[in-house]
């Protein structure tokens, strides 16, 4: 069963901006309610316990090479 929530404003004549504000408010309310959800589903062992997601490589993103990094860290 799909979990969809509909706010039906019928034939109400409101601006696109107002519609957008209502949509934003609904999303905010949904987010707020979901924020505390915790089913402990991650405890079901499936893969080796690790970080399976985006992992920012700081050195690459600030465009420095290993040599510069070692110098910065005081190690030659």
């Amino acid at each position, binding site marked *: 069963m*799909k979990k*969809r929530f509909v706010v039906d404003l019928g034939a109400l004549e409101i601006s696109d901006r107002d519609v957008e504000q209502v949509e934003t408010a609904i*999303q*905010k309310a*949904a*987010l*707020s309610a*979901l*924020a*505390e*959800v*915790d*089913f*402990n*589903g*991650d*405890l*079901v*062992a*499936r*893969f*080796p*316990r*690790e*970080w*399976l*997601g*985006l*992992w*920012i*490589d700081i050195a*690459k*993103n600030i465009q420095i090479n290993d040599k510069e990094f070692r110098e910065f860290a005081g190690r030659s």
Partner: protein
Amino acid sequence: MTPQAVSDPVGCGTTGDEPLNCPSAPAAVGAKLIGIVQRNGRVGLFGKSLTVDADFLEKARRGRAPEKRFRFASPCLQGGCKQWGEGQCGVIRRVLDALGNDRTGAGEDAGLQPCALRGTCRWFAEHGRAACRACPEVVTDTQEA
């Protein structure tokens, strides 16, 4: 499959011209909330993503790590991510290797969960439906607390 947005994604309603997104990103303001880790450990994916705001993040961080409980998406950083290797995402490659074809249903044409991200998903762009079948099995952070 070439790692780029596909022109005819499965049931996503997008053009495929947008940049690719990582479907297993850290929680951050502006990231998209795309699913919740359910009791059985599988991720229930949303039909439409929600954009994470500061209030959500503040509230979510009061509990266990959000990445243990939710799945988020944000733009794929490719080589700027430590998971990137050999021109593709190392996460979904490892997951598919671990699950094997029997779990990913390779070659089958079974229905997929609706997904808000599919049209711009890095994993889908690289591995197609096999990635979609494996995706709900992935919890971003399974490290010990």
